[in-house]
């Protein structure tokens, strides 16, 4: 029997379950290595070379190099692991989360100060809220 996944119909959301975790095992373990200051320096000095030490897929490596966090999550990454890349770059969780929406930092920050993203229209796929697939990317990226 396959894993029961009642969460697949939540828009704009990937639940980190055992299937995602298997897919992202080395991507996430690479991220863990960045909790060590010396490793952070080595990574920053030559990202490509550092990534070559890890048995990750080329697609995962490209997503890391591009800091494409949505791509990393699709490929099995989890935000608490990926946050180590952001920390290495000197980014906050707010900057990292915002980067996944298409909004600029200021747009995302303003949305949070106004009370955050509404759950209305964003509970199930096929509603019309701002997190739905047909409304991506949001903010500045969506106006281009």
């Amino acid at each position, binding site marked *: 029997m396959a894993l029961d996944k*009642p*969460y697949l119909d*939540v*828009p*704009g*959301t*990937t*639940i*980190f*379950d*055992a299937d995602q*975790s298997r897919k992202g*095992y080395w991507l*996430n*373990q690479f*991220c*863990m290595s*960045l*909790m*060590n*200051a010396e490793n*952070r320096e080595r990574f920053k000095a030559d990202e490509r070379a550092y990534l070559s030490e890890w048995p990750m897929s080329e697609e995962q490596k490209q997503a890391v190099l591009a800091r494409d*966090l*949505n791509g990393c*999550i699709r490929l099995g990454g*989890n*935000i*608490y*692991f990926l*946050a*180590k890349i*952001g*920390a*290495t770059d000197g980014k*906050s*969780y*707010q900057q*990292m*989360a*915002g980067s*996944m*929406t*298409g909004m600029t930092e200021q747009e*995302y920050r303003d*949305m*949070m*100060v106004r*009370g*955050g*993203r*509404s*759950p209305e229209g*964003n*509970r*199930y796929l096929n509603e019309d809220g701002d*997190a739905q*697939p047909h409304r*991506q*990317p*949001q903010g500045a990226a969506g106006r281009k």
Partner: protein
Amino acid sequence: MTMARITASVYTSHVPAIGAALDHGRTGEPYWQKVFAGYEFSKRWMREHMPDVVFLVYNDHATAFSLELIPTFALGTAAEFAIADEGWGARPVPVVVGHPELASHIAQSVIQEDFDLTLVNRLSVDHGLTVPLSLMFGQPDAWPCKVIPFAVNVVQYPVPAGRRCFALGQAIRRAVESYDDDLKVQIWGTGGMSHQLQGPRAGLINQKWDSRFLDGLIEEPAELAQVPHIEYVREAGSEGIELVMWLIARGAMADVAGGPKPTVRHRFYHVPASNTAVGHLILENNR
């Protein structure tokens, strides 16, 4: 003989940016003032109601536990717990001093009540544990009491159900109250409230749902414990699942075992701190 007792439960979000604001001296900024204002009463209350030990329920954020080992419930039994470097460098806060004897007693009692805990003798603690300490104690040179860390897996599914957390809290209360030393123990439940840190739905906040959660936690925790994971995800964002940890602390209160209702000493709610709705409660046990 006088036994240990649970005097109160404290609930709070543990947003990492709150720690960063404290550590980098930004607490005076209007944005952060609105957060810290909600904890002014709490710091005064703590000074007047200082426990000997805090049993601190939190989640590790891929810090001490990588994908190599994913314990559902991990109890810190060491004498000391180092402050982790989560990638930004370790927070400049005091080392956390444990209570190995009480922790070992809780382990024996709770495991023999059929909760399969993982015991951890080497554990570095991240913002999930240190931000609540900072919010309640400020910035002392040493934490004013001992702390037993209790880490819950809410990162990789399957995560424990609310009803399991609530039942575990009840077992923890029985364990604490069968420890033959005159100790005042608080139990803290941390994390939440509504927030989502990933994907196009990042930034989700649900004030109505959070408010109902706080009401339910105070008045009808057994019913609240029946809420399935999918409701947390849909209504409170993917990282809102952290709120199941509050049910462990609530389960340890006397009324759940037929005693009197707790007194609500403090309730605070504010949006936002970074990506997150900040919720905070203090419940005093009555006996």
